[in-house]
């Protein structure tokens, strides 16, 4: 009786195993898989039910049968695991096969505006000088004759006033023709503090309008005043600036020049950024490009600013932002900068 029973149970266990394994191979979804698992191994599963019948076996036979059931259970669980992984892999393959997109289509557009090229150049100049310890000073665009001319050693009727054609508002008030009045305003404000080390970017105005002149344009002024400032310091600062602005391998050269508010004065050329100095169309074959005017602050100007020229010296420089932008971006006509055509602006 017991033997018969044992044989029956054993055959049932094997049958369940074979059927489960067969069914397993045919199932193709994780859900069906789970269902089958419950049907066989769950609390009410067929294998569990068989296990319950083992209570009627003898003490000797029970562990033997138990071992058989456990082996089958392990085997089935292992098979389920394998099949489940197989199904996952298949599902992944299927997903990858269907989720293919055209990566050449343009991406979602993120709005992006453009800085005006002159703003870009001004900020770049500012950043270079901030890095060298300069502050940024500002002054009014509508200026008095005193600050724009007289305090800069350009008394009324000085022939050098003709170098700049001014826009007047009254006889004594005009649109500043240069950022240089900020030199005086800064010195008046800071004296006797030392050192003075500023740049002053801003709009300036001259009565001129053609491909290389605009009635409104931008300058950046620079001023350093301290004890023992030398012309060689001017050269050093401007060499640093030129290399930051136009490239590491740039050289500069100074040429004697004239400005009423500096003495000695110098025009500064930078080695051509296009040909490197060998001569090309941009530099008209000279290898050099004029970028700014500079010099040692005239003693009278230091005095006007409240400093004693016996004790301190200084240097000053001024550059045209439009010119630098034109050189940097290869712009041929200055008027493009104020025409504000979006096709032009959106290049920057």
């Amino acid at each position, binding site marked *: 009786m017991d033997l018969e029973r044992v044989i029956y149970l054993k055959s049932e266990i094997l049958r369940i195993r074979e059927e489960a394994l067969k069914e397993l191979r045919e199932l193709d979804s994780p859900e069906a898989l789970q269902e089958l698992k419950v049907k066989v191994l769950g609390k009410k599963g067929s294998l569990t039910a068989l296990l319950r019948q083992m209570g009627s076996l003898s003490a000797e036979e029970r562990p033997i049968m138990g071992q058989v059931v456990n082996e089958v259970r392990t085997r089935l669980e292992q098979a389920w695991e394998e099949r489940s992984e197989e199904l996952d892999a298949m599902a992944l393959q299927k997903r990858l096969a269907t989720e293919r997109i055209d990566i050449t289509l343009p991406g979602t557009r993120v709005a992006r505006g*453009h800085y005006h090229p002159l703003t870009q150049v001004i900020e770049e100049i500012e950043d270079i000088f901030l890095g060298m310890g300069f502050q*940024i000073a500002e002054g009014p665009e509508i200026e008095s004759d005193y600050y724009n001319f007289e305090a800069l050693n350009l008394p009324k009727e000085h022939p050098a006033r003709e170098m700049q054609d001014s826009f007047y508002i009254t006889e004594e008030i005009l649109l500043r023709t240069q950022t240089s009045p900020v030199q005086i305003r800064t010195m008046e404000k800071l004296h006797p503090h030392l050192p003075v080390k500023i740049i002053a970017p801003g709009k300036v105005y001259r009565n001129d309008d053609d491909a290389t002149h605009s009635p*409104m344009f931008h300058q950046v002024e620079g001023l350093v005043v301290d004890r023992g400032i030398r012309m060689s310091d001017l050269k050093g600062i401007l060499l640093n600036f030129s290399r930051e602005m136009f490239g590491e391998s740039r050289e500069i050269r100074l040429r004697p020049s004239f400005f009423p508010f500096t003495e000695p004065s110098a025009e500064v050329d930078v080695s051509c950024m296009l040909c490197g100095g060998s001569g090309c169309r941009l530099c008209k074959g000279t290898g050099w490009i004029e970028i700014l005017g500079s010099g040692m602050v005239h003693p009278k100007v230091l005095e006007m600013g409240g400093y004693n020229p016996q004790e301190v010296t200084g240097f000053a420089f001024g550059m045209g932002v439009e010119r630098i932008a034109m050189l940097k971006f290869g712009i041929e006509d200055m008027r493009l900068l104020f025409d504000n055509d979006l096709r032009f602006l959106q290049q920057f």
Partner: protein
Amino acid sequence: MKVSLEWLRELVDLDQSAEELAETLTRGGIEVENVENLNKGFEKVVIGEIVSLTKHPDADRLLVCAVNVGQEEVTIVTGAQNLLTGDRIPVALVGANLPNDLSIRKSKLRGVVSQGMLCSREELLLDDTIGLDRSADGILILPPTAPIGENFGHYLGLEDSILDLELYPNRPDCLAMVNVAREVASLTRKKPHLPKWAEQNQVLSLPVVRDFRIIIEDQELCWRYAGLVVEDVHIAPSPEWMQRRLKAAGVRPISNIVDITNYVMLEMGQPLHAFDRDKIEGDVHVRPAHPGEKIVTLDGAERTLQTHTLLIADDSQPLGVAGVMGGLYSEVTKDTKRLMIESAHFSSVSIRRTSRRLGLRSEASNRFEKGIDVSGIVAVLGRVCDLLIDLGAGRPVALVDEVRHLPSRRQITLSTEHTSTVLGIELKISEIRQVLEDLNFEYKENSGLFQVEIPTYRSDLEIEEDLMEEVARLIGYDRIPTTLPQGDQTQGRRTPEQEFRRRLRKVLAQSGMDEVLTYTFTRAESDAQWGSAKHQIPLLNPLREELGVMRTSLIPGLLDVAARNVARRNMDVSIFEIGNTYWGEEQPLKKLPREELRVAAVAVGKSERHWLNQPVSYDFYYLKGIMEGLALEFGLKLEFRVAENQSLLHPGRSADLYLQNQCVGFLGEIHPSLEKEWGLERAVIFELELSTLFKRIRQTVRAHSIPRFPAILRDLAVVVTVETSAEAVMAKIRKLGGDLLQQVEIFDVYTGNPIPEDHKSLAFSLRYQSIERTLTDEEVNLLNSRILEGIQQDFGAERRK
């Protein structure tokens, strides 16, 4: 100043080419703007002789010429029919670039090689004063004396080069050939060979004039006036060499007397004027014009003079406008027998005013304006005497020299040590000495301290720093090393306001707007429309009328830019500008006006089409969104209120912007009635004043901790009338929600079926959260229904099902 190299060579030893000299001068501080080679175009044109003429084997109309060009014989094919064997003609050799821009290359004409071209007058841009009459029909035929093989330009006397000097106002001395020669001599360490009258302290010994006096009425306007009386005047053309030099300098030759005065002006820098002595009645007066006084000037024009015009007059009438133009009456003519040649000083300010007002600018007035060397006034007349005698043009007999003021000679102390410090170069005493020698300045030196005598022609040298520049430019600016300032270190940093403007620009650009820069002067009418006519500041001398006033609003400039772009088919525009507006408090201005920084924007059209995303319309909500982004960036509580009195903006689509009850700007669609004027449809704009904004920006961020307890989300959709303001509903929701309602957002606005007419549906998403505990569904439901009741009560809202 045009400098003839040929002339300069006479005044200074020179071994440089024109181009090399130009570079030397430019590096020395005298900028040479241009070098004009008069021989240009004739470099490879030589004089040749026709050795033989034969018919071209394959072309009836062509001739094959054998031409002797000196060293060799060349074959040239020509179509010209006016040639005879033995003719001397200009030959353009291979490589020539003719004045008419024709380049000559070796070529083959019907199988015969031609090694150049025979030239006509037209090809050489010459007139019919050159060559034989036969030249008219083809090739230019030269006289049989023309030397074979000589360069054609040299044959014509065109060897010279002209240097065009661009002089700074500090170097008027270089308006004289002798001083250019001095400058070249200093820079190249060569010896100048100047006429003796260019040297200081030359004395001109002539009897003193007895029959008239010089009467200077205002010695501020005329410091010195000298007159040279000349008799036995013989008017004739001046010699060819003098005419050539005058032409090279751009001065037209007239007669020997006028040419001498002009020649000496170019040479010595002192303008001169010759009067017919016999036209002068009584004394010579230097005086301001009387009211309404008139004079007919040399050009035949009658001119009414203003009272401060300086005149040269005799006892009865004006003879000339001092320093600007002579009078017709006292002009030198072919019948003139006696002269008075004027050499004088006139105030540069007075001359500038007069020449401006009369619109007469000349070589003479230019030199007076820049300032002349008062000490040299009589010496210059010495040079005139020499030329008058050399040219047989007249006999100097007497001199008058009225001196009222003579600038004293300057002495400047130059310290070797100080110069070294300022330039940053270690200079030796000997180097400074060498510079002063090269400049030919007199000096005394004592242990590195130089007492320098400044020659009167160098009026620009006033202080020690001026001499430092002389030292630097003569030893070369390249000697200056590169160093960095040695003083205290400083920290470069933008001020908070500068940083604010930078961030503002960044926020706007990152929102997708393009920055523009427009002129700050604009049309008065447009600016008055958007800004304030009362505060507009007009320019006295605008470039054009439409750039006549300083702007009080940024809007017209931006609308112009938008309209211009749309007209050019750049249909979608979203632009901004940060810039000043200018506010005058009175007319005319007595003090500097207020400059008010603003930001403004114009948008029209929509964002570009995209396969994935809907384009964004540039409408009210577009700009409002950008402003909200801006408010978020700077922590500003920006309020949008229905615009008051906005005839410029669409009344239903505009708002005034408030910060803590202060109006700081506006936002809206431009009024439909303005669309035509600007050529823009449905443009939206904003303008904000920035100083108030800057004062109110959040200085620091205080962080809130993140709630640990879960949030409960609820959506709430209500139907209200279209007039109901969403903001008001939201405010009510916030109020009723209390502390537990962490966030309210509108996520949908809908009109149309099934919403009744004149109604809209607003859908809100509400987030409830406590920082202390987990909320229960029940309390949230209770809060939510209380909110619903509240807005039903206040707005007559219906819950949308």
